[in-house]
């Protein structure tokens, strides 16, 4: 066995695992495009077609008999919007919420890839090579994070095209903080879903888990609606949901909504979430990946 030309460092093969996933993705533009359709439909449907902001506009708020001047109604409705969503533009509010949504959906499907790899024998193939078990998992997480962030960028671009307006304080720095928060969210969620899939050989089980978790995680967050108007029993759930904190950061940074929890706290919360779940995820996966 010639030792030269052999890299047996602890991270060898990590990029190979990651790139394999990415390759499948960018080589199949169809799947790539399909995955973007959902958040865009949400943006269009809730942001444009069923725009909550419209309810408070001058046209709909005209009370007969009470002949309020248009100016007053306008400023009144602006105030209502402002106090409800923290911005007068519900479309922007929702569009930014869709960033964490796409990250959630992207991270969910990462668990699926490991089920298929186990089912189709590729996982076993990997495990008979000197590739470390940790790298098998980290490669999956990493590729999932990259996919999630790329999709988030595209969703943001589309939202801008559709009329998302940034706050006056918006800078490149705000963008960096936002994507750092989304990165942490993607990291924690991907680890979580890979962990849930690690021993599974049935994709049906995985689908069931995904379906069970996706809408509750999405609606029990501030993605569509602000926390302060939620019923008391829902609030605790919303306040542990990492999506809420990612939305907090993104909204504060991009459209200037004053968040319920400070940006610093939100970022810290996400750091903790990502650290704990990727640690547990990688540890458990490493332990239970083979029998």
């Amino acid at each position: 066995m010639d030792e030269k030309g052999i890299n047996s460092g602890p991270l060898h093969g990590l990029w190979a695992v990651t790139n394999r996933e990415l390759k499948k993705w960018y080589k199949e533009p169809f799947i790539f495009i399909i995955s973007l359709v959902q958040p865009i439909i949400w943006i269009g449907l809730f942001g444009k077609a069923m725009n909550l902001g419209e309810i408070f506009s001058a046209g709909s708020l005209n009370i007969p008999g009470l002949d309020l001047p248009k100016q007053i109604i306008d400023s009144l409705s602006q105030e209502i919007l402002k106090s409800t969503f923290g911005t007068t533009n519900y479309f922007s509010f929702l569009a930014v919420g869709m960033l964490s949504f796409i990250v959630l959906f992207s991270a969910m499907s990462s668990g699926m890839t490991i089920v298929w790899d186990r089912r189709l024998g590729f996982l076993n193939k990997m495990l008979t090579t000197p590739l470390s078990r940790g790298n098998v998992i980290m490669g999956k997480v990493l590729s999932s994070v990259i996919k999630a962030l790329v999709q988030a960028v595209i969703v943001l671009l589309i939202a801008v095209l559709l009329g998302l307006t940034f706050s006056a304080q918006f800078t490149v720095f705000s963008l960096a903080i936002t994507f750092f928060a989304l990165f942490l969210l993607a990291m924690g969620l991907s680890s979580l879903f890979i962990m849930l899939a690690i021993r599974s050989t049935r994709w049906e089980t995985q689908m069931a888990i995904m379906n069970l978790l996706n809408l509750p995680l999405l609606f029990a967050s501030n993605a569509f609606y602000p926390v302060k108007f939620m019923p008391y029993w829902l609030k605790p759930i919303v306040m542990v949901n990492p999506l809420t904190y990612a939305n907090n950061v993104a909204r504060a940074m991009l459209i200037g909504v004053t968040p319920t929890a400070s940006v610093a706290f939100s970022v810290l919360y996400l750091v903790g979430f990502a650290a704990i779940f990727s640690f547990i995820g990688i540890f458990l996966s490493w332990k239970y990946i083979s029998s």
Partner: protein
Amino acid sequence: MTDSIIKVVGLTKIYNHTVLAVDHISFEVNRGEIFGLLGPNGAGKSTTIGMLNTLLKPTEGTALIDGIDVTKEPSNVRKIIGVVPQEYTADEDLTGWENVMLIADFYGISRDISRQRAKELLEMVGLTEASKRKVETYSGGMRRRLELAMGLINKPKVLFLDEPTLGLDVQTRTAIWEHIRKLKSEYNMTILVTTHYLEEADEFCDRIAIIDRGKIVKADTPENLKKGVGGDIITIQLTKDGKDVDQALKGIQGVTEVKNNGDGLITLKVIDGGAVAPAIIKAFTQMNLNVTRLTLARPTMDEVYMTYTGRNLREEQATSEETFTMRRTMRTARS
């Protein structure tokens, strides 16, 4: 002196605390040998290979590959082995070339070396042209050959092949075995192989272990195994019935069994048929009987297999091929 590269002592696997799949097996494989594991479905062949290639943790016992313990230093074992599993493992969404290069990356082989090797290996298995295509377009034989190339990218000292020819046509099977032979002769590679095709095991393996219900019931060279089941079979056709010849035939040295229905066709079981045949003809001449035809048949692996497992492998072969086809259908159904 025999130099054994695989040493297995008391290796045992119990799945989920209940299924005893491999039951304290011990064997050694010599360096540069093609060693066959033969046995019915569920005998524990794949489980044995799984423990040797570090995929499964043994419940008990030890195994050394080139002196390295599979449970204590699995990552060092992985560096020197190649594995071609029973099922197809290549990533169907990637091309043949990408698959081989991917495995090379898993081994940490630097790009300039792996490119060269991948080229040579794909050439060797005759996939140079096809390697630019996605694996989902490959036929069964092409997939097998690709798996072989993938298993060889690290120039392993020991190659594990689990049913490398299952479900393939005779021509492809022969081609695969030619590759295996070449690996042995050119690189002195040690090959541990399982198969359901007895004639393949007979023709290509240096030694065979017959495994049944998790235990090795017999291990030897194909030659010795066949000798062990009672020697050759001689069939004689006489012009007359030859009713009273049994006693005389049994007196000939080497004859162990005589079957005579009295219709002129006599079947004998003999040890070393070639040497006994002249004596038999002589005996008949002395009894004034004319032998019109004498055929000498060596016992086949089928008989060996029957003797040690009490089963007929032909039926097993069919069920294995069936499950294999089913698995493939399932793979295709995925997309």
